[in-house]
């Protein structure tokens, strides 16, 4: 009897923690969407800010964030995937490999503001790229690399060795094996990781703070060497830096809702790819 009560108590405790977590998430979403959805409209996402950003839309911030994420992906995916292929397929277990792996893990733990400072020193100043969407994208790319490497390596690890042996035994080289069998099989897993990393990068503020994001720009960022507006920074600015904070509050909530929707969309795509892949197996 006492045992039963104990089990019941443990069960309640675990269920309670889970519900609490869900509740917190629910409250956040409720708060943002209930206050923000009233300002989200077609005009809001398709127009420029006007009247000192107290009216109008957030089009440049949306475009900026999309462009930024695109540059980040363009830079981080090839390097990250190549690095993961090297680590998982070629590197023999050795002290060097262990050091490389440990470094990558540690990279993932570095606070994002440090990436921002590093990006400022390397891309903006040393490489003379200036404060631009390119500098910011590369900085975010550096931040994303460890995640892409780790998720890609996990995806590669899930491919059983029997698949590799199949082509090797036919006389395929290791490169052919990776290109023709391992990568195609691992692609859904890699894509999932890439998209989740993109959704993370889209919401980052600190790394872009010194490297290219702007308070306000006139027009749309059209080339990689221009400064840009971004949703997370726009939100930060509207909610803490604006001269009429109370007045722009609905706009801030609206921006938050758009950012969350964007990130959710990416996550749902990732979820869908994973689900589809799982049902195929």
């Amino acid at each position, binding site marked *: 009897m006492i045992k039963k009560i104990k089990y019941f108590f443990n069960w309640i405790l675990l269920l309670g923690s889970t519900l609490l977590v869900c509740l917190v998430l629910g409250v956040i979403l409720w708060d943002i969407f209930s206050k923000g959805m009233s300002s989200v409209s077609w005009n809001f996402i398709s127009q420029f800010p006007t009247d000192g950003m107290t009216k109008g839309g957030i089009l440049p911030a949306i475009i900026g964030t999309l462009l930024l994420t695109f540059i980040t992906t363009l830079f981080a995916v090839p390097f990250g995937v190549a690095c993961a292929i090297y680590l998982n397929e070629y590197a023999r277990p050795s002290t060097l490999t262990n050091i490389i792996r440990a470094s990558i893990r540690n990279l993932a733990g570095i606070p994002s503001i440090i990436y921002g400072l590093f990006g400022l020193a390397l891309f903006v100043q040393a490489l003379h790229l200036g404060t631009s969407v390119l500098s910011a994208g590369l900085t975010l790319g550096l931040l994303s690399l460890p995640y892409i490497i780790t998720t890609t390596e996990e995806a590669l690890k899930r491919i059983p060795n029997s*698949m*590799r*042996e199949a082509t090797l*035994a036919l*006389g*395929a080289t290791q490169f*052919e094996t990776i290109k*023709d069998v391992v990568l*195609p099989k691992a692609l859904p897993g890699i894509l999932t990781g890439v998209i989740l990393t993109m959704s993370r990068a889209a919401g980052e503020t600190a790394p872009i703070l010194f490297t290219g994001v702007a308070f306000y720009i006139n027009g749309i960022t059209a080339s990689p060497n221009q400064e840009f507006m971004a949703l997370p920074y726009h939100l930060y600015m509207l909610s803490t830096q604006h001269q009429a904070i109370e007045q722009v509050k609905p706009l801030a909530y609206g921006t938050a809702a758009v950012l969350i929707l964007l990130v959710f969309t990416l996550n749902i795509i990732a979820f869908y790819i994973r689900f589809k892949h799982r049902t195929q197996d």
Partner: protein
Amino acid sequence: MNMFFGKKQILKNINIDFPKNKVTSLIGPSGCGKSTLLRSFNRMHDLSPDARIDGAIKLDNLDIYDKKNSVTEMRKRIGMVFQKPNPLPKSIYDNLSYALNIHKFPKAAIPELIEKALKESYLWEEVKDELKKPAVKLSGGQQQRLCIARTVVLRPEVILMDEPCSALDPISTHKIEELIMQLKENFTIVIVTHNMQQAQRISDKVGFMYLGELIELDTAENIFKNPKQELTKNYVSGHFG
């Protein structure tokens, strides 16, 4: 030949010949090294960083472990079929065309070679109308015959088979055994098996291995009816294993 994984010696003083166009079976209890031996014949241990081999393995005069020789060329001459069917994530047709393409067979000859290999693997009748179907949609037995066809299509000299029936039902097993009996007319076959009845049914020669040593190698009849070694006798009569 000797073989080590790290400091541990897995194969001890193995000396074995495989006669052309015959089926040679390697039998022995789990962990005796028979699969390890088989996988050393086409350098499948290259993937394991701490595997090391002493001595030589030769196909005619080709030293398989000679660094000067191309591994991929060697594997074209020594094919392998694995324990679990492992079709490529491609169509039935592409499972066979893949190897032909990487070895640069003339494009025009490929369809014919594929048809021939599928016929030799007793699979043609079952799949000829759906060659574009993904190979993973086939049944386990069909997949294994596809893996054999994929090996056969390259016209290797030797086919290594690592317990090719252990993941299959009795009917598929029977089909594969018949297939092996057919294939030996054109290929030299080395097969690792757990199943002593199977070894008896299909082999010309049988090697019994125990704890990394080749205890006895003789005709199937002698191994099962008149084994010379006590260990072999105990194993084939089912006293251990």
